[in-house]
């Protein structure tokens, strides 16, 4: 693979006379950790976030007190940039670029055409490529899929999708969460023991229903868990504890104004420790029709 495959072609450049404070702002805005410094049309060096940090006030408060607070505004890119950085060409093999990054302890390499920069190759780009290569040896699918089951209209589709996406001989865990919605209504009148008994009844019934779902004849290592509490919180906690690779949740059909109210899928997407697959109820039919 060549550098041109991984390099970034949209990037800003710095000039040696720019203040470090401005350079830091620019890098923060563009969410990059390294930018090339240009002298005319040639690459004069690179400036990294680490270099800016090194040039700024000490992180030790006692030492920082003795340094001017506006040090970064007084210093320029020239004072902190790294010069003599090797460059690569778009056709350079990625392996060569990786060695240059490692040997030089560099954050990024400018990619040049002649003397003009045409791209930037960062350590992060190369690490991503290596992760791809290492992961390529594994078979398709996810190691551990957690399916949130609510026995609603989306359950079948979610279960089918979860089974399909799990790796051969992987793990599929079905989770149902019993929500004691009526607890606050009855808590004043019913003894706690009765409430707990009701929850236990619902939990046992849910477990029996989960067992009935095991009709796929799947070779997967199938687990069933019934928890009590808020479905989103329980799913998030369990996904983290079981180190699930994928969380599958059905998307219930909502009509009227409820259509605009966020459901569990939206909440899970925002906070899940793994990717989330949101499955619409008719997805199984859709797949079958293809």
């Amino acid at each position, binding site marked *: 693979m060549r550098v041109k*495959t991984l390099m970034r*072609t949209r990037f800003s450049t710095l000039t040696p006379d720019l203040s470090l404070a401005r350079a830091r702002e620019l890098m923060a805005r563009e969410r990059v950790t390294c930018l090339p410094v240009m002298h005319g049309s040639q690459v004069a060096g690179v400036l990294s976030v680490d270099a800016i940090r090194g040039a700024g006030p000490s992180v030790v408060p006692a030492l920082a007190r003795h340094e001017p607070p506006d040090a970064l505004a007084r210093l320029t890119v020239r004072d902190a940039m790294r010069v003599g950085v090797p460059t690569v060409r778009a056709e350079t093999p990625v392996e060569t670029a990786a060695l240059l990054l490692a040997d030089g302890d560099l954050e990024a390499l400018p990619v040049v055409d002649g003397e003009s920069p045409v791209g930037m190759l960062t350590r992060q780009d190369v690490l991503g490529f290596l992760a791809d290569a290492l992961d390529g040896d594994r078979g*398709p699918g*996810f190691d551990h899929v957690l399916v949130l089951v609510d026995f609603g209209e989306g359950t079948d589709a979610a279960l089918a*999708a979860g089974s399909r996406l799990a790796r051969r001989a992987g793990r599929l865990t079905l989770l149902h969460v019993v929500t004691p919605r009526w607890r606050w209504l009855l808590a004043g009148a019913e003894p706690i023991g009765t409430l707990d008994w009701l929850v236990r009844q619902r939990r046992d019934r849910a477990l029996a229903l989960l067992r009935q779902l095991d009709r796929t004849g799947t070779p997967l290592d199938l687990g069933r868990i019934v928890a009590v509490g808020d479905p989103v919180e329980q799913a998030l906690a369990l996904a983290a504890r079981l180190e699930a690779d994928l969380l599958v949740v059905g998307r219930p059909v909502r009509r009227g104004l409820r259509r605009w109210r966020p459901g569990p899928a939206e909440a899970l997407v925002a906070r899940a420790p793994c990717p989330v697959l949101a499955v619409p109820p008719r997805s199984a039919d859709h797949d079958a029709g*293809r």
Partner: protein
Amino acid sequence: MQGSVLVVLDGRRAGERIVGWVRRLASGTGATVHLLTVREPGRLVRAGDRTVAFVDEVEAADRAEGLTYLAGIATRLGVAGIPTRLDVRVGRTVEAILDAQRDTRAGLVALATGDGGAPRGAVTEALVAELLRRVPVPVLIARAGLARAA
């Protein structure tokens, strides 16, 4: 997994994390991956009274740049033996994704949310919420800042 997967990329590195997961799903299955990036409509570029670039020229340049960007991602998937197709669309992001899903008959839409400071056309949590309401097939979403990557 068979059929095709539509992968939405907004040009930001955060969004590319989805590629690893898609590769994991699609490798060895024969599925075709459609890489889609959506650009906002071009605007007339003027300098004083003179028109420097017309809308179609701006959009053509945007499309070319988008294809170059997607080609890099496609190479990464191609190494894993996954057939890919590239698609650059101009317009409103949600509508473009829905159109692309319909056109490609994709059975899965995959995307990653960015980490804030999103430019126009980027995949944001608001966009994801709208997609979840409207896309008729499963949607695979990786949020920004996931501790574990694919």
